């Protein structure tokens, strides 16, 4: 019987797995204690300290909502909207129900994978040095890791189930997405999150694979424009991943976590973020020049992106330290820039949709 209070355990301890997964007691929880000791993280993640306390009683709905990470849902919804409107205008949308199911499936999959990722971060001890990023429901003890893992499996299974009709009608989707999904789940399980190649997976998943998957399940078949849209959306998502890694550059470097930002260092990362955005501007300019039917839309979107590029360049030049309010402000503004770009694209796409409806 483990008493309330602090508890420190080595991974080799026979009860460690029970404690970390929350299986050691029915009415107690062991919450991972954060530490600002990030250096030598490999050693630090081998021995963890918990606060054992009585399990807080919270309703399932409240716990479930707290466990869902909805702040990244735009990573799925934004490309979905672009591809959906494109297919409506191209008159290639075959079956609305099938389309709806695939959208819901993608959302459930994303929520499930994010949740599984949160569980892995907790169990691997990453939350010990990144307590601010820990899942709310886990941090509060409303859900135990093993419960949340089950919850994530349910969501992933639901996502697969909802996507099943699309796969039956368009089996090429499975060939396209299947291997990558499998690889990423294996990678996640093995704690390969802090590897540079995992960033490429993020790009592919929220980029070309996602837009192509939607394109096919909407009935449009393989389409180069959908791939291009995916490159653009994936590029923006990757930018946001870089921003998150940039924000925690100091801690991640101390912990020897490997990602593009830690590799480049503070000044290199600043430059990379600007180049990233400039490349987005170029890619978007190219896409618009090929596919935009309206010159005003082309110049409108391009001008907004150009202004944001100049602003981002200015903000990075002013940024002098990896910590402090200037950094927080930069991250906030850069993320807002992504949202503004997405908002503008959505506005243009909706305008096109309305125009199409009027003409039809």
């Amino acid at each position, binding site marked *: 019987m483990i008493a309330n209070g*602090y508890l420190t355990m080595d991974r080799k301890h026979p009860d460690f797995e029970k404690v970390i997964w929350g299986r050691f007691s029915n009415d107690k929880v062991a919450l991972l*204690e954060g530490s*600002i000791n990030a250096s030598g993280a490999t050693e630090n993640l081998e021995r963890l300290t918990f606060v054992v306390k009585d399990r807080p009683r919270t309703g399932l709905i409240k716990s479930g909502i707290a466990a869902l990470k909805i702040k990244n849902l735009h990573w799925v919804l934004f490309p979905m909207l672009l591809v959906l409107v494109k297919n409506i205008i191209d008159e290639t949308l075959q079956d609305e129900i099938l389309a709806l199911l695939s959208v819901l499936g993608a959302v459930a999959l994303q929520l499930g994978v994010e949740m599984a990722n949160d569980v892995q971060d907790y169990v691997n001890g990453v939350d010990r040095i990144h307590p601010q990023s820990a899942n709310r429901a886990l941090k509060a003890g409303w859900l135990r890791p093993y419960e949340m893992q089950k919850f994530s499996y349910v969501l992933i299974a639901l996502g697969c189930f909802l996507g099943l009709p699309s796969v039956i009608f368009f089996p090429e989707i499975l060939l396209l997405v299947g291997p990558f999904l499998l690889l990423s789940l294996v990678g996640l399980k093995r704690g390969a999150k802090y590897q540079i190649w995992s960033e490429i997976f993020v790009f592919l998943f929220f980029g070309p694979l996602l837009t192509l998957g939607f394109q096919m399940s909407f009935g449009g078949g393989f389409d180069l424009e959908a791939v291009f849209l995916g490159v653009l959306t994936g590029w923006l998502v990757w930018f946001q991943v870089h921003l998150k890694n940039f924000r925690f550059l100091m801690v991640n470097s101390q912990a020897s976590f490997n990602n593009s930002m830690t590799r480049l260092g503070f000044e290199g990362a600043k430059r990379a973020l600007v180049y990233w955005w400039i490349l987005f501007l170029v890619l978007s300019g190219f896409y618009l020049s090929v596919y935009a039917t309206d010159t005003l839309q082309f110049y409108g979107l391009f001008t907004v992106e150009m202004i944001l590029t100049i602003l981002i360049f200015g903000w990075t030049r002013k940024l*002098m330290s990896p910590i402090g*309010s200037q950094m927080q402000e930069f991250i906030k503004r850069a993320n807002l820039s992504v949202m503004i770009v997405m908002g503008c694209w959505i506005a243009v796409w909706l305008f096109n949709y309305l125009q199409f409806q009027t003409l039809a």
Partner: protein
Amino acid sequence: MRSIKIYDSKDFPAYLPKLNLLYDELFTGGKGFRAQLVHLFCVSLKAPENTEKLLAQTVEFIHNASLLHDDLIDKSAQRRGKTAAWLKYTPEYAVLAGDYLLARVMVNLSGFGNIRLVQYTAEVISDLLEGEWLQDSLVGDADVQLTELDRVHNLKTASLFKWCMRAPFLALKNEDKNLHHSLEEMGTLLGQLFQRSDDLLDFDVRNHEGKALLGDLKSGYFNSFAAFCTQDLGSEKRRALKQVQTLPEFVSALGAGQFESRLAEFDRMNQAKIELYLHHVNQIEAVIGAELAGKMKSLPDLLYWRKAK
């Protein structure tokens, strides 16, 4: 705690009189707390006297080197009630004197022949310098968060506390991972508590030494308590608080009763850190012995609550 002679005239070259004079002044008047912490561990571990002397000297040399550099960076006019070295001997001499102390540390430690100890000491010096560097970037930042300050203080202040606890074990070739993990956590917490308590002195809280008030704020630096007090305030109010010159002004700008309630909350938060620290001491009690564990457990009273022994 007995007093430890940190160095003698043979430690520094006799043909550099100005350097010796600078060190004589610098090393006089300090509490030598870090050396005493090393002493506690060395006695308990029955470390040979020359090992204890080397370790005590090492930590005081590093600490005083950091003070020489720190005073220059902060432009502090006084150190231990005397004119700061950079003002009295020029900034160039102060930098050289600090560098020389760090060089002596490496000479002395490498002569001891324990490569792991040399490596760890070099890591701690790097941490100190990183902390100094980062702290400078936070001067004038009225929106800095407590967690960020904690990270800087972990490098700048806590690293030497960790060293005091781990170095005696490393010197005796005890590299047990679990032990060092607990010592590392203890050092972090103790350093954090010491820094936070030191920051409270600025606001005349448990300021038995009569330290000058609002020193940090007047130099544009939001210390841990200032950041904690103002964390829920808007940016404008925070900036206004940065301008205050006296403690009553600060208290009144914060709002009636706010200062006391924030202080109580700050103390509660740090009491939780003390409990975590005590948990880690309990973890290693079997290794360090009940007597040393007892002394370690009393340290938060001294370092955070500033209770006189």
